[in-house]
């Protein structure tokens, strides 16, 4: 019946000012009834030109800038820049600093997953979850505040190590938070991950084609949600990930639910990784100091480094011409692939209700699209 009657297409703007969109971007939807025929993403509401800015800054001044590339998780960016510089300079990182970096990266992954859990269930209309997870995320943020002095932007990891050593008794406080979060995970399961209505909404929705996923450059939890075991931490181990006992988590299904389960299990795994790090962490210095930051010239050269962030693989391509400032810093983040090209492909034939649901499951972060 509906095939006979041609329906007229309507244009709906989802964003930049819409409660269901993560951050400032806009999706232009062409809909008939409540089926999306085409979705076009429009970005540009947040453009700040980080890459260009860094070409005008001293090397040291780049660290506060890279934090801003993705607000919920600044640490993978700092890690990337620091590792790229270390690779060009050939600077050694003390072992203790490597352990601390791993801990910070995993804690930041957990914080981001908590934020994501809230967003995912908020986009399905369950607003209890965001309140819980954002509240619990605060415990991790408190740890960061104690460790780095900053709650959101840490500027903790820098070339040659980390900025300062752990405060007294910090390890115990981390362990306490980990115990709490592990216990809390059962509450999350009961409220969201085992909720029948959530399963109904999430299973079979937002399917990524498994064969094409790698070709399109899908990374991180969305790729592992397709059942493809790819994780930079395993494929190209950095810091101390190769010394720890952990597995790459995958989930078959390639839908919103499998991505949710990948994140949920990785959250559990991060807890165990941080525990191992705390157990194995050696004593020693945390920083291998370089020259005076004002006269710091990185030798000419280039490096490409990768880090597994909570949303997927983050790549930094850093070129130095031997001067006080970087020649070029290129950021390759997951959000552009996920939030622009992949999202446009996935929106076809979807219900309006699922647009923000799918968008959240991909973990889009608009400021990173427009770094």
């Amino acid at each position, binding site marked *: 019946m509906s095939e006979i009657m041609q329906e007229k297409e*309507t244009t*709906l703007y989802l964003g930049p000012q*819409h*409660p*269901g969109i993560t951050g400032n971007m806009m999706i232009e939807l062409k809909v008939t009834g*409540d089926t999306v025929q085409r979705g076009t993403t429009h970005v540009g509401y947040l453009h700040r030109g980080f890459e260009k800015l860094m070409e005008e800054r001293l090397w040291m001044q780049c660290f506060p800038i890279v934090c801003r590339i993705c607000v919920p998780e600044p640490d993978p960016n700092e890690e990337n820049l620091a590792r790229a510089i270390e690779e060009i300079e050939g600077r050694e990182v003390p072992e203790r600093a490597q352990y601390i970096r791993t801990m910070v990266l995993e804690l930041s992954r957990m914080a981001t997953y908590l934020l994501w859990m809230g967003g995912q*269930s*908020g*986009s*399905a*209309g*369950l*607003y*209890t979850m965001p*309140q*819980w997870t954002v*509240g619990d995320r605060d415990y991790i943020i408190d740890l960061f505040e104690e460790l780095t002095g900053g709650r959101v932007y840490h500027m903790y990891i820098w070339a040659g190590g980390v900025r300062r050593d752990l405060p007294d008794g910090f390890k115990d406080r981390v362990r306490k938070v980990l115990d709490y979060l592990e216990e809390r995970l059962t509450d999350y399961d009961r*409220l*969201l991950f085992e*909720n029948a*209505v*959530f399963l*109904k*909404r999430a299973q079979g929705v937002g399917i990524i084609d498994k064969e094409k996923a790698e070709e399109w450059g899908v990374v991180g939890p969305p790729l592992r949600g397709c059942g493809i075991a790819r994780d930079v931490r395993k494929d190209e181990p950095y810091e101390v990930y190769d010394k720890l006992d952990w597995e790459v988590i995958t989930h078959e299904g390639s839908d919103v639910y499998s991505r949710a389960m990948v994140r949920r299990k990785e959250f559990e795994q991060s807890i165990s990784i941080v525990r191992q790090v705390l157990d194995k962490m050696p004593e020693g210095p945390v920083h291998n100091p370089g020259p005076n930051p004002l006269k710091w010239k990185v030798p000419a050269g280039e490096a490409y480094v990768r880090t597994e962030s909570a949303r997927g693989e983050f790549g930094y391509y850093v070129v130095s011409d031997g001067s006080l400032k970087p020649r070029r810093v290129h950021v390759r983040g997951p959000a552009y692939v996920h939030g622009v090209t992949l999202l446009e492909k996935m929106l076809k034939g979807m*219900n*309006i*209700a*699922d*647009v*923000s*649901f799918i968008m959240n499951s991909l973990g889009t972060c608009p400021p990173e699209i427009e770094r």
Partner: protein
Amino acid sequence: MEPLFQFFNNLFPFISDWPEWLAHTVVGVVTVLLLFGFVALFALFAIWLERKISAHMQDRLGPMEVGGWHGWAQPIADAIKLLVKEDIIPAMADRTLFKLAPVIVFTAALAGFAVLPWSQDFIPADLNVGLLYILSVSSFAVIGLLMGGWASNNKWSLYGAMRAASQMISYEIPVALALLAVIMNAGTMSMRHLVIAQSGNILDWNVFNFFPLTAVAFFIYFVASLAEVNRTPFDLPEGESELVGGFHTEYSSMRFAFFFLGEYANMYIVSAIATTVFLGGWLAPFEALNFIPGPIWFVGKAMTLVFIQMWLRWTLPRLRVDQLMYTCWKVLTPFSFAIILLIGLWKVL
């Protein structure tokens, strides 16, 4: 003699001296004002309660400042704020319909209160078709929502209104059928007689009749009534992550407040219907508790159901529109038909 008139006559004997039309009008208007006050008070209380319940479920405190004790005056402050807000009507809106919509929604909700039996004596209008009346009046709200959404000249509003309309009319069928199951046994549609038929102790309540058939009917009614009043998991008409504000996106000031009031009044009405039809209305569960007056039982039972509605809102995500229609037409409707037939069979045999 009407129970309502008798009730007032007992309180103020002099009104029987007045001409009949005047006496009835005065009694009627006084009742409306009383119930309007009740609706307003209930809505304020329910808003406060919902905020506190959601807050405590979410590890928060909720409003704590205004009024001192647990922010009890917060909804009053909100109401005053809404009263002195600027009233904005979108430029291209259909102004007449835009203004008419909240009036219809709220009046329909208030008119539903006309047949609710608060106690043996106090029932504003004891119609012999009470239940049918309340069902038909509450579907008036759909017209108001459709009007408001269409008149706003906003796509989100139109989508919200369309969804609201299709959802509310669909779920009216299971609601009507579930209530029918009880009427078959009681043999009356008067709200008052429905309750009187349940006198006795808790096991005489309709929900325990033909166990478990009526209990299932009660469950079907409750689920469908959630959809009738647009509560989670059926709050699609105003799901903010999809439709921003749904049909009331463009409404502001007092007009928005009346949509809101109407929604809370409807929450109470569906709970009150469930109380009357299934849970023994103003009756106490045990003879020993008869000293507690009827209205307290009635409001208490209805408020318990309202609480469950709120509870569900903060524990369940929202369904998608195709799942919503599936639940209504392919689950609830066939089941309620089955229950009617089974009860009929039970009674005949």
